[in-house]
């Protein structure tokens, strides 16, 4: 730094950091408010009465407080308005089934593959891994069209099988992510196990999996969130109500609304109910999710 800056720093060194600190906190506070307010506002609207909302009431607490919107969306109260339906418990069940199947399958099979790429010697390993990585570059819409044709030909439209098929066996990201961890663990323990006569499967289950439980769990969370939020694929392969998932149901519920007087309270109740499982899950595992995204950024 220049001599000038040096002198200046000595003079105002005490007050300047404090001022920038205050400013930083004000900006951070503002960002936190902007981040959280829409959620609060949706919650407040979900517990408000539709008639008063249309009158343009903007008070901070629910206007004409009522739980009828939540009851309607959950299905406890028959839907009388407009014919738009949102069968929460059914679509929740479908979302849970889809996200769980995808997460368990994808993490397990990707871990198998990642272990092979990280630890086992076989001809063509590097070439095959590079091929897997190029899969990261293909935009999802590119494979969506042929995959749709495939699922249709298999007769899997509107089935759970069709819903989970492209994701349950692997994603290039999952394989890449886990391979990084497997490369990082201490080889000596595995070698000792193999010298003791343990096969690769036993070594993998007994030694590698317990040692990498944290990243496996992390990948599980990320996979679950991604599957839960997926919209485009379920939209094209699972439109029928029996297999419809939350995101698609929410989209359908929106398009069914009359343009002139949408059921805002009902919509916000449905919206918050769709977000709730993820937000609750995040509240329970927050630190780990934050750390893992940070990690996935560094690698």
């Amino acid at each position, binding site marked *: 730094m220049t001599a000038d800056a040096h002198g200046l*720093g000595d003079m105002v060194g005490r007050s300047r950091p404090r001022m920038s600190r205050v400013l930083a906190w004000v900006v951070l506070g503002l960002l936190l408010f902007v981040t959280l307010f829409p959620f609060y506002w949706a919650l407040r609207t979900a517990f408000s009465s539709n008639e008063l909302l249309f009158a343009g009431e903007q008070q901070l607490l629910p206007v004409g407080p009522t739980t009828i919107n939540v009851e309607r969306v959950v299905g406890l109260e028959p839907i009388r308005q407009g014919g738009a339906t949102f069968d929460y418990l059914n679509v929740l069940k479908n979302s849970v089934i889809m996200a769980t199947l995808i997460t368990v399958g994808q993490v397990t099979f990707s871990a198998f593959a990642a272990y092979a790429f990280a630890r086992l010697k076989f001809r063509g390993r590097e070439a095959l891994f590079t091929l897997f990585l190029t899969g990261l570059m*293909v935009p999802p819409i590119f494979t969506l*069209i042929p995959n749709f044709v495939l699922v249709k030909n298999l007769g899997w439209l509107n089935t759970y099988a069709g819903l989970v098929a492209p994701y349950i066996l692997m994603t290039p990201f999952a394989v890449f992510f886990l391979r990084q961890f497997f490369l990082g663990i201490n080889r000596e323990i595995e070698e000792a196990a193999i010298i003791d*006569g343990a096969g690769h499967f036993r070594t993998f289950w007994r030694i590698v999996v317990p040692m990498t439980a944290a990243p496996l769990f992390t990948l599980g969370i990320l996979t679950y969130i991604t599957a839960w939020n997926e919209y485009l694929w379920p939209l094209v392969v699972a439109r029928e109500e029996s297999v419809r998932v*939350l995101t698609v149901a929410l989209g359908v519920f929106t398009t069914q609304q009359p343009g002139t007087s949408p059921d805002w309270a009902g919509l916000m109740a449905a919206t918050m109910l769709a977000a709730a499982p993820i937000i609750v899950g995040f509240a329970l595992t927050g630190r780990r999710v*934050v750390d893992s995204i940070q990690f996935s950024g560094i690698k």
Partner: protein
Amino acid sequence: MSQAVATPSRVKRPTGWSRMTSSDTGAAWLFLLPALIGFVTFYLVPTIRGIYLSFTDWNLLSNTGTVTGLENYERLIGDPLFWNAMRVTGVYVVINIGLQTILAVGLAVMMDRFTKSTFIRGVMLVPWLVPNVVVALLWLWMLDPNVGIVNSFLGWFGIDAIPFFGSPTTVIPTIAGVNIWRHLGYTALLIFAGLQTVPNSLYEAAAADGATEFQMFRKITIPLLRPVLALVLVITVIGSFQVFDTVAVATGGFGGRPGGPINASRVIYLYIFENAFNFNLFGYAATLSVALFLFLFIITIVQLRLLRASESDLA
């Protein structure tokens, strides 16, 4: 590389199941099998099939098509809606990435220099965790021209109601803004992670020399962050070009037509989707996907070149 592992497993050959599995090649293919089936079935073959479909007039209803050569590609060159979609998407990406990157760098530096609170990082991440559909609906409600809180708020300052999603000039900036809201915390977190690789001693030395926060930001943070920033940019730009959910829900709700008003938000993903699933032009939709794929590929190469992503200034 893994010589040390391979040798002992070859020397010692136990019996039965474990003997079979400790021979690397056999075990490797068993480990790989499920993922390999998934990769070949849902990535490799569809990619090749997608390229093939782009040269056909595939009809989904009859599930047949004939090869039509370059017809789809000629059509694409002369298709004003394709160029409109690319332009709309381009404008969206520029607004979205431009603002988001600046805000995210600022937020990441604040999170790094002033508070390392995991709680704040966690709260900023919440919008990224919930589905796009949820985000679109939250903001449809917030920005409603008649009863939305944002327009009421503007009204208290005497500003006229803004139609946000409802006018051709505001719809794309609005969607860009909504997605910045969703991705800011996530992008800042990735940059924050990069900042953790900058040695603290550099800041301490600079502070001892009397450098201001801003000087440190310009002379230390930015140069050392460049490789991370380059990768974050590549990832977010590719993601940004693929905007779909928000547009489909925010402009398609309440009896509206997705992509409206008047094509102003018909982004490339939506146009591909419509060609495939609304117009039953699977071949042409595949052609549009090939064009997008090539375009993203070129954009990525150019970005990596310009940003010299692999070189670090931390010598």
